[in-house]
């Protein structure tokens, strides 16, 4: 509706009525109600706050965040950055945050992969495949995550000891001390190759943009994959070869009562990751299924009628439309996974909740400890939301 069709009398704003000091005036009622509600909530908060201040004084509990710079003295088994019990609480809490991120990021990636596979499997024409996927989704979503985590942890503890470790292939050990994998000994050449890979990805992206622009100009599609392979795979390999191609594998081996060398995954981390991934994948599977079903069958048919191949139909027509339905609920599933990683405290994985909990028990400063937990999760939640909202806006339907 354009402006021309609107009656000019309605274009003016209605004249502002003077405020009458009467209960019959809607605006007066609104102001009174707001003042009442704010006063009640403010009163409750003030009451709780004054009680707290009084209690803290009576119980001689210190306040403030000064304790962050004191020696923590709490041992942490798993740390991404170097850490000793003699380090400060601040460093201990940082280790906790990194441990949370370690499980959350890996969990989100794996849960997305597993969830997508299960979601597509539920739509499979094969009766067995779709029924198994349906059974998995139904059962996994109806059991509390905490129960599943305890179950997996019990299973981990039930594995044989290091000496009788389950040993399916050379360098692979599964025992109640965790998993061991062979690892690459990291050297400067590997870092250089990784950097080359990043540079290659950026160059590929630039090349794809140029190719797309040229296609828009003359209508000729250009192949991107040869350049992508050369830049993303070829360039790092060339750099690695140029630097002498170092290649030393660190094999795990049994020394005494435990393993040495290789990459280690603790039973706590493994149980937490398996539990979080299988649980969240059940929810993601439903999201993916709903997203794919939301694309009208006519879209497939129309795309095939245009002569697009199956892969192109999926990539250019179906996925962009399905993603619009998938992204918002996917975001909340990612947030849930991150928040659920706090259940680590029940099985002894030292994430931020576990370390902050130990900190508040040692220092007695409950308010600061819980404030730190909440702050960390609010920051993580907000970051994921912002990123996913940006992505969602990017793929949203562009309408007139």
């Amino acid at each position, binding site marked *: 509706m354009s402006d021309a069709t609107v009656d000019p009398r309605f274009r003016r704003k209605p004249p502002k009525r003077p405020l009458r000091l009467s209960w019959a005036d809607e605006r007066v009622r609104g102001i009174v109600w707001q003042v009442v509600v704010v006063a009640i909530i403010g009163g409750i908060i003030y009451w709780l706050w004054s009680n707290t201040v009084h209690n803290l004084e009576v119980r001689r509990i210190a306040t403030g965040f000064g304790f962050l710079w004191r020696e923590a003295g709490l041992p942490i088994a798993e740390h991404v950055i170097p850490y000793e019990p003699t380090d400060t609480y601040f460093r201990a809490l940082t280790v906790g945050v990194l441990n949370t991120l370690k499980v959350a990021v890996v969990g989100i990636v794996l849960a997305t992969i597993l969830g997508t596979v299960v979601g597509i499997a539920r739509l499979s024409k094969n009766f067995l495949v779709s029924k198994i996927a349906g059974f998995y989704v139904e059962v996994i*979503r109806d059991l*509390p995550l905490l129960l599943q985590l305890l179950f997996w942890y019990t299973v981990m503890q039930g594995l044989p000891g290091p000496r009788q470790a389950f040993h399916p292939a050379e360098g692979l050990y599964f025992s109640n001390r965790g998993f061991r994998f062979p690892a690459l000994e990291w050297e400067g050449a590997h870092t250089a190759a990784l950097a080359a890979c990043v540079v290659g990805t950026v160059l590929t992206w630039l090349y794809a943009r140029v190719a797309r622009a040229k296609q828009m100009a003359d209508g000729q599609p250009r192949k991107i994959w040869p350049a992508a392979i050369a830049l993303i795979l070829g360039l790092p390999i060339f750099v690695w070869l140029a630097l002498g191609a170092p290649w030393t594998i660190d094999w795990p081996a049994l020394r005494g009562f435990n393993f040495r060398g290789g990459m280690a995954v603790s039973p706590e981390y493994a149980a937490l990751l398996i539990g979080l991934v299988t649980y969240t994948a059940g929810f993601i599977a439903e999201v993916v299924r709903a997203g794919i079903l939301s694309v009208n069958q006519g879209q497939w048919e129309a795309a095939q009628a245009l002569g697009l191949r199956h892969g192109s139909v999926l990539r250019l027509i179906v996925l962009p439309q399905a993603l619009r339905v998938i992204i918002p609920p996917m975001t909340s599933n990612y947030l849930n996974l991150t928040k659920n990683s706090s259940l680590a405290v029940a099985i002894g994985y030292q994430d931020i909740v576990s370390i902050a909990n130990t900190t508040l028990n040692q220092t007695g400063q409950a308010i600061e400890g*819980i404030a730190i937990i909440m702050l960390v999760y609010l920051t993580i939640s907000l970051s994921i939301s912002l990123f996913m909202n940006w992505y969602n806006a990017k793929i949203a339907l562009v309408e007139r």
Partner: protein
Amino acid sequence: MSDITANTPIHGSSAPRDAPMATTGPIAWLRANLFSGWLSTAVTLLLGYLIVRAVVGIVDWAFINAIWSVPLSPTGVAQTQVCRDLQGAGACWAVVTEKHRFMLFGTYPYEQHWRPAIVCLLFIGLYIVSAMRRFWNWTLVPIWIVTLTAIGILMWGGVLGLPYVPQERWGGLPITLILATFGLAFAFPLSILVALGRRSSLPAIKVLCVVYVELIRGVPLISLLFMASVMFPLFLPEGMNIDKLLRAQIAIILFAGAYLAEVVRGGLQALPKGQYEAADAMGLSYWQKTGLIILPQALRLVIPPLVNTFIGFFKDTSLVLIIGIFDLLTAGKTAIVEPAWQGFGVEVYVFVGLIYLCFCFAMSKYSQGLEAELNRHRRR
């Protein structure tokens, strides 16, 4: 066309053709759903093999090699050596046989276990009555009040000749059901108020509701439970103390309220604007409009997601394990602390999991049925 080909044999080939492939019947079903191509056939065969292997393994473990009871030593300690000798080849259901009363009812006095048992049945009856659409009106309110009072009397006792049982001795399934039921009974009205507040035109109320919802949804439930268990005592004046279960209950109500509020808000937003305008045009006040026109329609729209959220909270009550409240999962975990039963966690968690599964599966099926029924008018 068919007449011509039938009457004029070309090239003299009049050999009878094979009958067309069946498109109905069990063989056609098998061909369409299990063996539609070489890939599908391979997947079917592989999965079929794995399923048979898994089923045989589970039946062996859970039934054939399982041990259902173990003798007690004269001192009353269970002799679990026979279970340990199995070395995982069979389940040791003896732990469930021995400990099921403890897992279900916790440390409640043994000879009074019939009381929490009746409480559980009352809760289940309450859920069934609430699920029936016939009762979706004001009669539900007295039903809930009467049942919850009866539950309180049964659990505490002290009247009608029932011995008094302090709240510290409650445990197991009744605690889970109490946390879930009372949590939802209080969180649901709270969530409606918050959802209305979030859509209110009054800025102060809107801001309060937005801050509440976003703050609670941004942090994990555990942090709220920790807050309830270690921070809450600091909030209260000296000498005043609320017991731990009630504090956890408050945390669960606040948590559930924020999530339910978002679901209810979805219903409020989905309602066409004309309904609001029509109610205004009738001259209804805000509360008349909300209570008589908006909420009945908006809530009906969101019943399926509401039930899904309820399932989530039923599962989330298990988190009270972390602050040491004796619910079903905590009771299960405690049952295997005893040295005799250490290492039989899998059996216990399977038992506890089956109980959760029964409740959640029933709710989930109910929600699906309801969704289909409420959407019947949309189907052509």
